[in-house]
């Protein structure tokens, strides 16, 4: 008998318009790839250059698509049931935790599998074009994609079982995927030119945590962007082993949670320092410097303050002062550590490389944090019923929305400020870099504003925060990561002009080119990218304004 959860999840998903749209877009894009590169002289290309070029594009697109889409459904799968109260019914039913897990996993991953099946005709066409190995390339590409789908779906389910809201599950899942897919590539990219075999071994092994090197290896592109280090060792096998172990681990960690104990949560006691004994009060005031004490009774909102902004600070997970200081501190330490390592010669990095690391760090933080802060500004209120209450107050819609945007902007600004000292060191080392650094800062500020406005605009379109967050991440990751697919396929199949055009959409690439990072310095991306971001900001502002006006007017 078919697992009822699997049946409900997958069938329910396939009935939605978005599932239909995703399938239609995928088929359309893959068909376009094949049609563009199909030989026009009715002869098979046994050299296989065209087929290889299509396969590369095909593999990277599917990988990027899976990384973006795969976590959306499983990340909300368990936590949504918990919020709706239906998880208790499932646990109380004769279904075992394994049944629930498998139903959820294949319900969500099943959709990814379906997308892979839909791509088979395009893969077959690649093979027919000639010059592509069936086992070592086509099957290997599908093995990687299958592992990615399972790995990220189990990861998302594991996080979903441990979070309280769908939004935090999505936020953490995308953060974890960034950690697994992108961050392991950093050391390898930035240790190019190192002669120490030990370092090479470590960074190569670390890079295999990500599916990207395995995919590149299978598609015959060696190291990241075909630059620098040459991969040593069996990359695909290493990734397969790591993916297998992590799938097993995430499965066990999820199964452990899928029982009645998932509901055993104490309600917070609501203690305040002000009501505790003198000794405790004195201790906490010293340890937390009074202002940062999370159990301090808050002061009343002052008349000149925007009450919505203060409310947002208080309700956001990381909006309270003690959390902000922790995040600020971590960013500051990271930035200072990089500076110290560079200036003391521990790392043999030039200013360009250090700048590249800082730019990637800042972009990753902005892209990760902005949607989590801003994609619930309106959808979150509508979901919780707070929007009606806010409308019943004398606050204008402008005050409500600006309060929310200001609260998110403050956090983003703090994150940017915390990573700024590294630029100071760069200036000290090479004072003539000042104009470049200024341009990088303009790019990053524009990216911060764009991320904020795109997330807020998306939030105004959706009724629930989870899809708004997923779509915001999708847009930003597609912008900063998706366009990198063209860069990875530079020279073959994409000509330089097309790569440059695509990278002009990408703020990360623009900042990297401005800071003179190897492989990016040859592109001229600013100020075209600033205009693109400016247009994006204007468009998002228009969408946000129209939507909030629509939502605020009497029915």
């Amino acid at each position, binding site marked *: 008998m078919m697992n009822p959860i699997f049946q409900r999840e997958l069938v329910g998903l396939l009935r939605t318009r978005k599932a239909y749209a995703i399938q239609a877009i995928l088929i359309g894009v893959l068909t376009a790839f094949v049609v563009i590169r199909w030989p026009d002289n009715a002869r098979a290309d046994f050299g296989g250059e065209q087929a290889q070029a299509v396969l590369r594009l095909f593999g990277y697109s599917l990988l990027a698509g899976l990384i973006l889409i795969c976590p959306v459904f499983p990340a909300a799968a368990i936590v949504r049931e918990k919020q709706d109260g239906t998880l208790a019914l499932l646990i109380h039913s004769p279904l075992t935790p394994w049944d629930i897990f498998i139903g959820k996993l294949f319900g969500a991953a099943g959709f990814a599998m379906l997308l892979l099946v839909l791509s088979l005709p395009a893969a077959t066409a690649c093979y027919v074009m000639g010059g592509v190995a069936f086992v070592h390339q086509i099957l290997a590409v599908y093995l990687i994609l299958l592992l990615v789908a399972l790995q990220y779906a189990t990861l998302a389910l594991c996080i979903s079982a441990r979070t309280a809201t769908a939004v935090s599950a999505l936020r953490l899942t995308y953060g974890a995927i960034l950690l697994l897919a992108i961050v392991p590539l950093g050391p390898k990219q930035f240790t190019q030119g190192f002669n120490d075999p030990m370092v090479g071994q470590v960074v190569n092994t670390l890079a295999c945590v990500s599916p990207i090197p395995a995919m590149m290896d299978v598609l015959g592109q060696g190291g990241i962007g075909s630059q620098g280090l040459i991969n040593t060792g069996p990359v695909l096998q290493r990734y397969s082993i790591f993916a297998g172990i992590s799938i097993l681990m995430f499965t066990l960690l999820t199964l452990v949670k899928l029982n009645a104990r998932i509901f055993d949560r104490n309600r917070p006691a609501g203690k305040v320092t002000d009501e505790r004994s003198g000794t405790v009060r004195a201790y906490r005031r010293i340890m937390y410097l009074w202002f940062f004490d999370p159990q301090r*009774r*808050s002061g009343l909102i002052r008349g000149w303050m925007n009450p919505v902004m203060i409310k947002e600070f208080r309700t956001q997970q990381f909006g309270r002062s003690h959390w902000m200081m922790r995040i600020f501190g971590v960013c500051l330490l990271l930035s200072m550590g990089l500076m110290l390592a560079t200036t003391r010669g521990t790392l043999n990095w030039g200013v360009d490389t250090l700048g590249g690391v800082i730019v990637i760090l800042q972009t990753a933080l902005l892209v990760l944090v902005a949607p989590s802060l801003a994609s619930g500004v309106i959808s979150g209120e509508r979901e919780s019923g707070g929007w*009606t209450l806010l409308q*019943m107050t004398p606050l204008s819609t402008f005050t409500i929305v600006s309060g929310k945007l200001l609260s998110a902007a403050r956090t983003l600004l703090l994150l940017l400020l915390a990573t700024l000292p590294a630029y100071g060191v760069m200036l000290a080392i090479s004072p003539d870099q000042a104009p470049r650094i200024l341009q990088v800062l303009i790019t990053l500020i524009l990216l911060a504003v764009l991320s904020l406005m795109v997330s807020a605009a998306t939030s105004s379109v959706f009724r629930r925060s989870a899809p708004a967050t997923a779509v915001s991440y999708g847009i930003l990751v597609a912008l900063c990561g998706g366009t990198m697919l063209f860069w990875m396929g530079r020279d073959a199949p994409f000509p330089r002009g097309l790569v440059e055009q695509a990278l002009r959409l990408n703020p990360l690439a623009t900042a990297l080119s401005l800071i003179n990072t190897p492989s990016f310095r040859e592109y001229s991306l600013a100020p075209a990218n600033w205009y693109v971001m400016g247009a994006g900001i204007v468009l998002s502002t228009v969408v946000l304004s129209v939507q909030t006006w629509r939502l605020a007017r009497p029915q």
Partner: protein
Amino acid sequence: MSDIVVQTRDLTKAFGSFVALDGLNIQLKQGHILGFIGPNGAGKTTCIKILVGLSRPTRGSATISGVDCTKDARKIKQLVGYMPDTFGSYDNMRVQEYLDFFGAAYKIPRKNRLKRIDEVLETTGSTYMRDRYVEALSHGMKQRIGIARTLLHDPRVLILDEPANGLDPAARVEMRQILLRLAEMGKTLIVTSHILPELSRICDTVAIITKGKLRAFGSLEQIMRNIRQRRLMELQLLSTADLDKAVGLLRTNLEKDAEIVVARQEATVRISTDADDQTLAELLGFLINSGLAVAQFREVQQDLEDAFLMVTGNDSPATDAPAKPAPRR
């Protein structure tokens, strides 16, 4: 000056061809509690949304303290405290912070706000919750904090959508006391609820609405008088053996169209009649003198639930009320 606080005239709201509210006319005096009842989808929430300025009527008008609900939303927000059926909680916020936020949103000066928060917490019996996190409160606690929130700006009219929904019996009693206390303070209340016995205990006025139309409006006694002209009497005998004899005697001594229903297992006869007290007293004497062993002869009291079922019972099964009137004992 008139003491009418809430007034609607021919209030109508249509969504395309669907008429959600059809020519509603109600009036409510200061300090009164209006029980607004009707099956799901009857138009209660539509009416409430117009009253609080969240929706515009297609036709007609609604005023609160003389202020037009559709034209002067700013004044209406100060005059009305609205508690929707969803609480609208915010995570990571303590009760005092929650009330402080809404106090600031209602522009209550900072120097008065703490005192006002103390007052509303005391009025709703929630002072002990001050430092608790809002998301950690039970449903009953949240309802009380919801009422405290609506009271913050000292509105003249409170509109509470299902305040007793999901509350346990003890919490319901507490809620009832809070609402009565508010009415004593001079607040005018409009309360919707599906728990009709609760409403009947606190409401001065009842409005029954189905399919957007006002079916009954007034005090419960008035409504009952209008709905049912006849009295429902119950005759209970000691033995079922005398039932047929009793029915025969009743038919000969009551008007021709009196309805007589026998519940044989309970040895009971239910009579729907126009007879007055004098006639009924004489009938009882006659039955006893005829040798019937009468255990009880009484008028069946009817309540809001009966009124609701009688009014909504004439509607099509599209509503969630039973299709036929079913008076209860």
